[in-house]
């Protein structure tokens, strides 16, 4: 399976659809362990991405993801803005000259994105952040020989749900210490929606 410009655009549009649909839920999660703006932030950021790429004329996935990165970086703000922005920027850089993107290249791109998130946010696995979703996804993509959409979604979902039992040590949720246990991390949830959008697009693309 390959990812071409159209798939990339469909992925981001689908991701936006999900962020809009789950806006209130993401905000509710962020009210529990943060400041109650994550859904608002993601909905704003991804709707700007959809607008941006609708007006573009793209020849490469790298260009799509670069515009995505710049838009997320400048329209989200908060903690998630620089993190998602950095992720897509690294993905873009890794995919330069790779069109159409094959599975291996994509896997390396996601690995680079994960590393970008970790450099920027200085969080490792288990700190109850979006890293806890990106890491197992990056690992799956690296190790699999053929991406299975259902498996991709399942891994993201389980990873997201596993953040529930963690105690946060990074991001705002860290202020709550033990009290942060029992709620899903909002950034992990939005990352799940991002990858579940990818899974759906890949499924349709088949």
């Amino acid at each position, binding site marked *: 399976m390959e990812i071409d410009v159209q798939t990339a655009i469909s992925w981001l549009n689908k991701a936006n659809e999900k962020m809009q649909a789950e806006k209130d839920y993401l905000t509710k999660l962020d*009210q529990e*362990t943060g*400041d*109650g703006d994550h859904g608002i932030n993601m909905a*704003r950021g991804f709707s700007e991405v959809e607008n941006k790429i609708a007006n573009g004329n793209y020849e490469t996935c790298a260009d799509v993801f670069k515009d995505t990165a710049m838009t997320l970086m*400048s329209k989200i*703000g908060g*903690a998630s803005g620089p993190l998602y922005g950095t992720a897509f920027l690294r993905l873009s850089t890794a995919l330069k000259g790779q069109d159409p993107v094959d599975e291996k290249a994509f896997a390396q791109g996601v690995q680079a994105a994960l590393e970008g998130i970790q450099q920027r946010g200085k969080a490792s696995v288990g700190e109850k952040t979006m890293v806890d979703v990106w890491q197992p996804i990056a690992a799956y993509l690296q190790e699999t020989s053929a991406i299975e959409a259902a498996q991709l979604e399942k891994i993201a979902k389980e990873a997201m749900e596993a953040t529930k039992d963690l105690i946060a040590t990074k991001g*705002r949720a*860290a202020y709550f210490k033990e009290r942060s246990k029992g709620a899903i991390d909002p950034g992990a949830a939005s990352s799940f929606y991002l990858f579940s959008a990818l899974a759906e697009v890949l499924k349709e693309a088949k």
Partner: protein
Amino acid sequence: MKKIINDPNQAVSDMLQGIVAAYPDSVKQLEGTTVVVRKDAPVAGKVAIVSGGGSGHEPAHAGYVGKGMLDAAVCGEVFTSPAPDQVLEAIKATDSGKGVFLVIKNYSGDVMNFEMAMEMAEAEGIQVEKVVVNDDVAVEDSEFTTGRRGIAGTIFVHKIAGAKAEAGGSLEEVKAVAEKVVANVRSMGMALTPCTVPAAGTPSFHLEENEMEIGIGIHGEAGIERKPIASADEIANELMEHVLHDLPYRKGDEVAVMVNGLGATPEMELYIINKKVQEILKETGINVHRAFVGNFMTSLEMAGCSVTLLKMDDELKTLLDAPSSTPAFCF
């Protein structure tokens, strides 16, 4: 949600227009941004002080733009750090060639966005330095975590770094004195009610009629401990106990005091807290150089307060007392 707003998604943009319309002779909004700058920016021969963060903390930060404090305030969405490009615009608009100093409150988002802007500005050849304010003793300080939050103590950093810059201090000197303030300032807050982010529409947490939160932040997040409402004296005692023992502040020290309202607290209550705070300081043998009571760093319509102490030396006293003329802080 009961708010005097139009479209919740336009609240920050409407507010910024309202600020500029109120003080057209002293501030302006950089076109196409959410940045409020001194009208006379860049001020020749002066290090520029830039701060900002999410909105909802008014008068922080736009209310502190003016002579003797900030050159620019970068205003994000409510409780959401502004993006790097906005911060970069503020840096570019205020740099006079003497460099720009960033005052950042210690939140993952603020730190990341401001640091990215700093890198971008440096890439454009602008000298930039920063300080990260982390005065909130309610949060444990540890290498392995996000660390302490920046709350009302930030105003003292604005004032003192601003005065140093106004007095002709170099970027290094401004940084040094700002770091001195950060090293000597501690705060802690409490709340009686939550607040509601306009675009969210519902309160960020729930408190029963007889409950209060101790160790609250300024982003509508719950505090570190929930308990039955206590008297003003008990509240002042609890906040002061944490603040005093943290630095620690000792007999013979001289301090500046800030009793800060979180947005919906009647001034009457802030002064009642101040009464007890001053009594405790007197008993402890700590001298008060100057006190500030009012709404300085708020959290929308949260009812509650924070108490801040800043240990003074001669340099800090001179700078704190230097004239400043901004809408929210002036003497």
